[in-house]
């Protein structure tokens, strides 16, 4: 098993849409089981062109599930939550976008890529997990108190 353990940068322009799912947030946070269901669904799609789809999906679903669980705990029940998969030749990008409570703006805005950061950031444990399994994780915040959690998977390198 080889894990890259390295963060990678992708050229967003090179990424093509693979799958998109939008849900009413109220519906999403009404049922915890949806986290697992959506994670497995996205991971299965992500892995479909991998040499070993079952193992690749299992690997990817660990982090995707954690991203979705973070959204489950952090999203306010307004508007929609977006799940997206994009891909190019090298990677598959999974992203989840949702609105968070503006009272937590300071915490969300304090994103520090280092897993050794203070631990106060809502995504602290998610970052630790991503680093442990060698997947690049990014967080984008916009002015409307909406956050996008982005994981870039290099399936061929991650699962052999």
């Amino acid at each position: 098993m080889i894990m890259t353990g390295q963060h990678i940068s992708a050229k967003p322009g090179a990424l093509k849409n693979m799958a998109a799912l939008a849900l009413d947030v109220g519906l999403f946070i009404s049922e915890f089981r949806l986290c697992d269901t959506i994670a497995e669904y996205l991971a299965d799609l992500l892995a479909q062109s991998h040499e070993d789809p079952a193992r690749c999906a299992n690997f990817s679903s660990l982090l995707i599930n954690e991203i979705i669980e973070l959204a489950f705990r952090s999203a306010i029940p307004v508007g929609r939550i977006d799940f997206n998969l994009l891909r190019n030749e090298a990677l598959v990008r999974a992203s989840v976008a949702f609105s968070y409570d503006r009272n937590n703006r300071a915490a969300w805005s304090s994103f520090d890529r280092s897993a050794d950061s203070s631990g106060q950031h809502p995504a602290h444990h998610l970052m630790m997990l991503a680093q442990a399994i060698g997947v690049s994780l990014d967080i984008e915040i916009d002015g409307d108190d909406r956050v996008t959690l982005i994981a870039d998977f290099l399936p061929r390198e991650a699962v052999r």
Partner: protein
Amino acid sequence: MSRQTSSFSAEFNEINQEIVLSGRMRPRSVQEIASVINMVRRSLAESGSTAYVNVKRLTHMNMTAFRCLAEVLKSACEQKPQRMIVVVTSSVIAWSAPLFQTLASTQPNLSVEIYDSAFYPGQTFVEDESFIPILRTQTKMTWRHEREILPRHGLRDGLTIADICCGIGDFATLIKRQFNPTRLVALDHSKKSLEYARRVAAEFGLNSIEYTYGDASQMLLADNQFDFVTCRHSLQIFDRPDVLLRELYRICKPGGRVYITNEKNSHCLGEPHSETIRWTYEQVAKLFSHFDMDVEMGPKSRRLLNDAGFDAIKVESFMVTNLDGDPQDFADVIEAWETVYAGQMAVRRGDTPDFIRRFRQGFKDHVLAALHPKGYAGWPIWAASGRKPY
């Protein structure tokens, strides 16, 4: 797709000092897994100088469960600094070792081991690369029968199929060519066999077979996925065939069928020299039994399928013989059996040279029967299938 977010088991084996966690642990809160965590805590408190936490079959986990387990392990490490805790993972679950390694890096008396053997008792014998040509020959011999038998068990064109314990993938390749499934997944626990399988499939231009490296008793495949699930000559080499059948049942669609083949080695036969041949194959059955494998399983297929919850069970047997094709193929297979059974397994059991000499003689006589112009040599196999109820 229906999967429970948390569907796991936890056991403590006092003799091995091993806590075994398996299944899916994605609880919403720590309270959901409190009983398991308490069991782990208690077991670690009672353990001796080395304790093992086996997560080889823990297929899914969330950070709620991991952090909770990590706290228990850390606490146990600190309470008994002289005691080693070994987390046992497998390379099947690609995230497992790196994740638990983060924990081990903080505790001097905690380590992570990737342990890919001992998934089933005969693994070291079966996954020997030198066995590959013989496996191919065996499949060639059985396929002559099975391609006629399989349709009687419900196999037809256009199904979704899983071949579990696919070995070198030759059966999957034949299925692909003969029955043109819409999806075909082939799973095995030998990376070398799978490499071979992928290479052969590519040579035949069969690019759509999904080969996957996995543990048949805790597969990463979702529930209710396949119309037809095959598992050939493999239940008999697992010490817990019921566990394997439970997994085959799980991945099969309601109304779909699980097809298994198994042997009854003591019924291998030949003429001339029927007595020495019979004695040797009776010893084969005892030898496998010594290693917790049951190569007499064939006629038990009906009961096994019934106990696993299948209905509409069909059972039939067929005899592979030296008259089916080239007798030399039959002879080659028997010589390979002699090499593994007498040359490796009997030696490992500690049998005497006299026993091994007599044991080998039956194989040699079986080869002679196969190649003799008036001889007859047979290898009986039971094919059975059951339907997963709607």
